[in-house]
């Protein structure tokens, strides 16, 4: 089972809230859920959609065509009419005046909302209709609706519940009942979390006690979550990302376990501070949620185009490790590794995620975090306040006296020693999905969801690997893996092949690399990846 329900409409009209509620309800009903938000860079108006993929096993990718498309308003229909396939079911508000057919049903969401409570509840009416369609009990939606609107007061909740009921009554003839989730799945303890939420939760579990930040999609949620949980004064909204990273450097120098979260434009500004942290041996985790660039690009759209910046990491030989998780689970497992590396090697660490990973919510098994290694690595770090241990740190090259030096031999010795503090390869540097030796698909971040779904179509022929550490690049570990496969398909969610360039710079067999790019703001889709795999296999 693998269904996609797509809610498509106008930003600020409630489509996003209703998407969240539906995802939560389906997750609570025992299904594996993947919910992807697509929204415009404006407060109200413009296109907004929420795609909810439901399956009976873990799912981390969108579908090319929705099984059910629910549309209210021109913004949604004009954009998503083209995504409909022959087998899609369309539920459209009557205001769109679509011709009814076996697949297309014109339903009065807006008028029903007006009659039942108020016009603003039209998406709740649609939610009721979808609930009826999928065979969800009314109570399964009433509970999350009331919870989502709890802060709005009894009157608003009551109005919405009337709208929900009216939605259920709207289309009794429409039925697309979901098979019940398997009993085992239903009973498992699972959570529905976004990558941003995972970053914040994992950070707190790691002992993170300081953050500073500047609002930026898709990282704002991390700061907001941390600000809700850290004591007042320990999550500071600064004048810019330069101040944010430097304030975190100061806090870490004083002993804090510090993290900053940002996105491309903010990473550009933080690069200076990353160099300072590297030079001063100050531990710090910098989370970057990649989005469409350069400059402001498409600020609410997905891309993976900060690899070059993250790996270069600043002027001079900054050698800050770069971690690159490819699932919400790996955020929980690898953020502790990032904090640990930061403390152990006294260095800034870049934790490179992407918009798809940060904003999409996915059902997952909880991952337990043990912060003991991080605490142990912090032991012995001299921090201000300890008597008799005063020392000087500097962005300048320091010599053996602890003051700036420009003596050639001292510089070379001291800086070599600095670089050697970071090992040439780290552990758990990639995730390998073994399938076959004809082709190895290589991708990072949230692209993994589409790749895993696609390679399942080629049993025994195609494997996939998702690097979790990009710097220091796991050359030895990956070389052993690459030799086992005939060809490599690299998926770059950017225009210039940044991931391809990394691999080419480490491996000589350039003729064995094939790459595909996507930089239209949308993530790779499973069917698209399957098509690329088939093309490469056919050309063999």
């Amino acid at each position, binding site marked *: 089972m693998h269904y996609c329900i797509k809610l498509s409409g106008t930003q600020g009209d409630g489509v996003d809230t209703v998407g969240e509620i539906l995802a939560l309800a389906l997750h609570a009903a025992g299904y594996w859920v993947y919910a992807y938000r697509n929204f415009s860079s404006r407060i109200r108006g413009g296109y907004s959609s929420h795609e909810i993929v439901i399956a009976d096993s873990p799912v981390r990718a969108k579908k090319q065509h929705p099984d059910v498309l629910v549309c209210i308003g021109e913004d949604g229909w004009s954009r998503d009419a083209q995504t409909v396939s022959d087998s899609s079911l369309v539920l459209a508000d009557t205001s769109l005046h679509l011709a009814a057919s076996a697949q297309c049903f014109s339903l009065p969401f807006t008028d029903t909302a007006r009659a039942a409570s108020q016009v603003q509840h039209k998406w709740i009416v649609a939610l009721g209709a979808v609930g009826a369609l999928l065979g969800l009990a009314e109570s399964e939606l009433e509970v999350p609706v009331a919870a989502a609107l709890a802060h709005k007061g009894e009157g608003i909740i009551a109005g919405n519940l009337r709208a929900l009921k009216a939605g259920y009554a709207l289309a009794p003839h429409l039925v697309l009942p979901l098979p019940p989730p398997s009993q085992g799945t239903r009973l498992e303890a699972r959570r529905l979390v976004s990558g941003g939420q995972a970053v914040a939760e994992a950070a707190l579990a790691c002992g993170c*006690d*300081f953050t*500073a930040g500047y609002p930026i999609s898709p990282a704002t949620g991390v700061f907001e979550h941390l600000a809700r949980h850290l004591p007042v*004064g*320990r999550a*500071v909204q*600064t*004048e*810019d990302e*330069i*101040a*944010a990273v*430097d*304030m*975190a*450097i*100061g*806090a*870490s*120098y*004083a*002993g*804090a376990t*510090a993290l900053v979260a940002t996105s491309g434009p903010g990473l550009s500004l933080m690069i*200076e*501070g990353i*160099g*300072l942290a590297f030079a*001063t041996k100050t531990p710090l985790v910098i989370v970057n949620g990649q989005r469409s660039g350069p400059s402001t690009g498409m600020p609410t759209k997905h891309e993976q185009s900060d690899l070059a910046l993250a790996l270069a990491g600043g002027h001079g030989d900054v050698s800050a490790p770069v971690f690159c998780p490819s699932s919400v689970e790996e955020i929980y497992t690898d953020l502790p590794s990032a904090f640990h590396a930061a403390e152990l090697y006294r260095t800034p660490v870049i934790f490179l995620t992407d918009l798809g990973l940060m904003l999409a919510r996915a059902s997952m098994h909880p991952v337990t975090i043990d912060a003991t290694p991080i605490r142990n690595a912090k032991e012995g770090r001299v*921090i*201000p*306040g*300890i*008597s*008799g*241990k*005063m*020392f*000087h*740190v*500097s*962005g*300048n090259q320091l010599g053996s*006296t*602890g*003051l*700036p030096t420009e003596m050639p031999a001292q510089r070379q010795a001291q800086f070599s020693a600095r670089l050697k503090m970071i090992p040439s390869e780290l552990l758990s540097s990639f995730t390998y999905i073994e399938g076959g030796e004809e082709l190895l698909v290589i991708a990072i971040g949230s692209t993994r969801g589409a790749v895993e779904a696609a390679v399942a179509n080629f049993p025994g022929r195609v494997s996939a690997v998702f690097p979790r550490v990009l710097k220091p690049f796991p050359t030895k570990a990956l070389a052993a893996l690459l030799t086992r496969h005939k060809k490599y398909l690299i998926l770059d969610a950017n225009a210039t092949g940044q991931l391809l360039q990394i691999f080419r710079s480490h491996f000589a067999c350039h003729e064995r690399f094939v790459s595909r790019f996507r930089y239209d703001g949308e993530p790779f889709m499973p069917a698209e990846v399957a098509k690329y795999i088939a093309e490469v296999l056919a050309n063999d």
Partner: protein
Amino acid sequence: MTELSRKSYDRGHQPTWCTGCGDYGVLRAVQEALAALAIPPHLVAAVSGIGCSGRISGYLNAYTFHSAHGRALPVAEGIKRHNPELTVLALGGDGDGFAIGLGHTLHAARRNQDITYITMTNYLYGLTKGQLSPVSPQGFKARGTPHPSSHAGLNQALLLLATGAGFVAQASSGRLLELIELIRQGIAYPGFAYINVFSPCVTFNQVHTYAWANENLHTATHDSTDLTAAMVRVNESQGLLTGVLYRKQ
């Protein structure tokens, strides 16, 4: 515990500054003020920016952090927020705090952490051999800039008064006793304290010399608890006042 003196805060390194540089006076005054307040060196964190003045942190015996250009304040604020028990100083030049770091200066002041920020103002960039600074007055000719400045110079104290900073003072590096006392008061003040020190560059600035300071800087006589009076006087005098300019009650 041994008695704390100026020497307790001296790391014993010979500064790289030119003979006669105003920054010697600031270093000495910071050490004397810390001794007067009997703050143990290990409970002092001093963060500096970049430029000749940025070297000052290396000469202080304390936990010292020589940060990036213009970034002393956010680093200092992070230290203070994590460990409020520390006495935290931020130090830098007029270019550091009012060109590249101006945003941090104004926002650190309004966030009002208990930090003492000391700028060493010499009206130019010394380490890069004499370019205009953001406080260079209009018409000022710097060695490294071909034409006299056509830009207005910033009035540092007036800007800081506008942020709501609770303690704003100015002093001359050449008048050590007054400088020590103002830094002492600034450190003791429970909130963001700003002390601007006229600190001559004896190599590149033949205008803003010790003699210039003696002739042009006047002791503030207004009621220093009156913000409006302070702003009026600091504006009228183009900032050429010394003493406590404002202290919030």
